[in-house]
């Protein structure tokens, strides 16, 4: 038995916080959502028993009359959001990426996407970023949301991007899926990036030897791969593509003269950013060496993010290997 006075000292974790520094982490998303809601009284917030991990505790405490705790019922939450939106409100609904998308796909199709309802679906815990295992790993959410007509799909890559994306999403009329890495205390404070625009890529560095395209957590890894390759005399363009749908068509021109294009995402290689880029390039007549970096056609397992990213090939090493493999093939 634990004595009553000892209980207060016990640490309570929810298995999705990866380290002790997560607790005081700056809630970039949560702060940006409250700021957007203070500008626009139509914004309301829904959560399905995941208030803390989705950073919506800030909203709950600041604007309690516009906060709805729906309970563990994601399909119902999406339906309610559809009803709220049809009554003129702008619901931001929150859960883990898996439950916000795969679990209630039909409800999203009928109550959000088809009627172009002004609902923003916000997921945290993307791809391989959980100890919990396969039930909580969203490796198909980008593919699912991309497949829905009328849906905009966004995965920002850092705190400044996240803050800017929230403002842009709030101002955008129509359904959006916003995929976020959970704040873990590793991020510095940041203000919204001024150059963020839905549907527009950002070229982070330029080089003539190939193009690396990435979204979300893979942007930083792509940049590190480019730095390493620069030491070997290869100069690569690195593109942050936060809007997975609609994809920025300017990428085709950027890639037209590139000897190789590699797309990296924390998602299955099937149906996500890599697929979207392949479709664009082929349809625009861009013929180049091409590789997708992401989870192969398999489910994964629970583990630390670093371990899982190495094991499933979402790593700097995997990107460098892909560059070298494509360069080998080009040699006569």
């Amino acid at each position, binding site marked *: 038995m634990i004595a009553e006075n000892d209980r207060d000292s016990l640490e309570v974790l929810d298995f999705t916080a990866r380290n002790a520094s997560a607790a005081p982490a700056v809630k970039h998303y949560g702060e940006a959502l409250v700021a957007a809601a203070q500008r626009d009284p139509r914004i309301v917030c829904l959560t399905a028993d995941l208030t803390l991990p989705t950073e919506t505790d800030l909203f709950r405490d600041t604007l309690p009359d516009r906060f709805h705790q729906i309970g563990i019922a994601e399909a119902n939450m999406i339906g*309610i959001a559809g009803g709220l939106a049809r*009554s003129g409100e702008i619901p931001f609904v929150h859960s883990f990426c898996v439950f916000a998308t795969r679990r209630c796909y039909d409800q999203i199709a009928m*109550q959000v996407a088809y009627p172009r309802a002004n609902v923003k679906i916000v997921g945290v815990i993307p791809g391989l970023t959980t100890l919990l295992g396969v039930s909580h790993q969203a490796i198909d959410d980008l593919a699912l949301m991309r497949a829905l007509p009328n849906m905009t799909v966004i995965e920002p890559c850092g705190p400044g991007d996240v803050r800017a994306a929230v403002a842009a999403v709030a101002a955008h009329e129509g359904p959006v899926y916003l995929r976020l890495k959970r704040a873990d205390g590793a991020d510095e404070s940041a203000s919204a990036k001024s150059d963020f625009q839905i549907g527009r890529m950002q070229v982070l560095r330029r080089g003539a030897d190939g193009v690396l395209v990435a979204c979300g957590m893979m942007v930083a890894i792509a940049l590190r791969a480019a730095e390493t390759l620069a030491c070997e005399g290869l100069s690569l363009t690195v593109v942050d593509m936060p809007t997975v749908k609609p994809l920025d068509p300017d990428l085709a021109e950027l890639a037209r003269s590139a000897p190789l294009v590699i797309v990296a995402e924390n998602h299955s290689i099937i149906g996500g950013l890599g697929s979207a880029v392949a479709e664009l390039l082929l349809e625009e007549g861009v013929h180049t060496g091409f590789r997708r970096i992401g989870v192969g056609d398999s489910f994964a397992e629970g583990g630390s993010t670093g371990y899982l990213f190495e094991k499933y090939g979402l790593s700097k090493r995997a990107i460098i290997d892909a560059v070298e493999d494509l360069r080998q093939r080009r040699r006569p």
Partner: protein
Amino acid sequence: MFDRATGDRQPASRTTEVEELARIARSLRRDVINLVAPTGQGYVQQGLGAADLFAVLYFSELRLDPLDPEWPDRDRFLLSTAHNTAIFYATLAARGLVACEAVHSYCGDGSPFEINASERVGTVIEATLGSLGQGLSVGIGMALAARRRHSQARTYVLLGDGELQEGQLWEAALFAGSARLSNLCLIVDDNRMQVEGHIDQVVTVAPIDAKFAAFGWAVETVDGHDISALLASLERARGEERPTCLVARTLAGKGVPSLEGLLAHNLKLPPTVASRALTELSQSAREGSR
């Protein structure tokens, strides 16, 4: 004239005259036959069975304005079993919410009047349902929004008893009871019919009333063809501090004796059967007027 700015606005004339509502229901039943017969596509038994519910809802209960269909304080009606459209479209046309001529394109290629009602028709269809089990959740969203605006608007959701086999329905029932959504009224069209026949031969949902009561709802069981009983139940629902579930017992094919009780999910109506049905409805009209 009514004042459009106040919640007391009475946009369109309504009636609580039982005889008048019964006459309207008989007329709607004829419309169901006339809509479905030419194409052979549609839901006859469900439409005949729900005609009294539609007459009471659209001609007595709902506060709507045919001249201003997007009036923010209007009552909302959601047909969760969105396939039961022959009676739905007939009612919308009779109430002046859609043009009668437009409804005649029902089931035609390119027509917005599809078998499953969708928002293609316009805002008079409040939500695209028909993927079963979703209507109550959407209704909850509308009821929550009305509550936040301090609007008197009420939300009515009509679903079939078979639809209660969908799990999402019970998520929604749990939430609405917990949130004490007094401006929400669910009507279960309890016709005991689903695609594969009698509901008890598939998966039993009874007792519906006890289940909703246990979820924190006010519950009434009512004869879905007893117009004065329906009016009284809906009036009591407006006084409740909880959401209300009306379990309306209906008879598939009601009003056409040769079809009554026939559990046929999608019934084709050859011309001879349609013609006989119209004759039977005329006979019952004469009896009803005596």
